[in-house]
């Protein structure tokens, strides 16, 4: 039996999340909404989720994103961190978020 590989990540402030190849963030011109396209699924992220996801480039850490959003919305950093991590974890649990990692051989 193969050892099951847990493909889900645990999101923290040090994570550098990125959408995997099979999850595409796209603006749907017909319906005028942002969508995430994934195998056999379409997710409809809200405006704030979209803003967070656009920051997920595999380089930026979650901490950096939270700093940026806290500054932009002049909001309490802790509250934003909680919300952002919860949202990203939800996406990761669904298999639509991965962590950038060095290619090792």
């Amino acid at each position, binding site marked *: *039996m*193969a050892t*099951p*590989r*847990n*493909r*889900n990540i645990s999101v923290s402030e040090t994570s550098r999340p990125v959408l*995997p*190849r*099979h999850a*595409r963030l*796209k603006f*749907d*011109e*017909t*319906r*005028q*909404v942002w*969508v*995430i*396209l994934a*195998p*056999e*699924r*379409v*997710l*409809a*992220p*809200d405006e*704030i*989720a979209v803003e*967070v996801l656009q920051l997920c480039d595999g380089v930026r850490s979650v901490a950096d994103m939270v700093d940026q959003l806290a500054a932009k*919305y002049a*909001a309490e950093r802790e*509250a*934003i961190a909680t*919300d*952002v991590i*919860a*949202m990203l974890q*939800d*996406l990761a*649990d*669904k*298999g639509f978020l991965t962590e950038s990692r060095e290619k090792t051989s």
Partner: protein
Amino acid sequence: MSPTLTDAGVAASDPSDGLAVLEARGSTAEAFGIPLAVLAELTHRCPLQCPYCSNPVELDRGGSELTTEEWKKVLTELAQIGVLQIHFSGGEPTARKDLVELVRHASDVGLYSNLITSAVLLTREKLSALADAGLCHVQISFQGNEPMVADRVAGLKKAHEKKIEVARWTRELDLPLTVNAVMHRQNLHQLPDIIEMAVDLDADRLEVANVQYYGWALKNRAALMPTLEQMEETSRIVEEAEVRLKGVLAIDYVVPDYYALRPKKCMGGWGRQFFNISPAGKVLPCHAAESITGLEFESVRSNHSIAWIWQNSEAFNRYRGTGWMKEPCKSCEFREIDFGGCRCQAFALTGDAGNTDPACTLSPMHEQIFKLAASEAAADRNQFIYRNFAGGTPETGGDHGA
């Protein structure tokens, strides 16, 4: 600030309401919004001869297939009217020499592309070219977990070995992989091993899809229908695996509706959130719809746009919504939950697509159908009729999957 993700999934156990969320957000689509995903059956040609093939018994010949330019025009039009995902299917889509070109075109017009394949015609170079063309996801069908059963069901020697090889290439190329396993009486005993195989292949998803009995599968029902005991065991195995493999492998489970109490919401309701395009260009409410005689289906080769066909053609409007229903559907509290089940199955089993799907316990034919299925399963006649352009060929030789 509370970011949320609404799952508008068209997947999993309830393939429903992919559109509900998006429509609620002010879609420009009209009463029946343009589907999010469309199935493009590029060809009916296939090197496999699976006895449960979802293609119609009357297959489209190679000569009637849409040309490369026609498919590209279709893809462009689909993207323009708001379709987001395209599933390239068949037959065997890789039997088309222009598949890479079509995938690239889908990428160019912004469609998310999925390849639904038997994999046996793929080379590593071809798969790599498809990945480079922007292919987003690969789904490979498996007929079992080892060659003895799998190659017998596929009606093709060395098919299983080839599929395993292609599945490994898929992951090496970092393409996400879904393993599709169509289950029936001849291979259900392999389900635990098929689940392990999917994990071993590093698949993201596994579809455990019990055969749906129309077309070729209806011809082969006596050889395919599981026993009730097998079904109960299957559900137990799937439920156990879903818990054990959470975060490792997502499992979508399709129960055989002969053994269900309520009919499935087939296609999410006729003409409600899905259509497919046949190799010859017919726009169909489901891939089995041509089995319903007396319905005329419009083609992309006609003067009508695809959006017009979806919204206005007689075939799509015939069984849309609930207005067409007779009793017991008409006054049923579930009529907008399941839309009366499957029209093709109603037609195949009762002769009238407007009847309640006999999978429903409220159908006057349910009891009879259930007993028939149980007696066929018990009789254990195992000879297949293989799918082909000649209208089917009986399996010969050997003891049939004993």
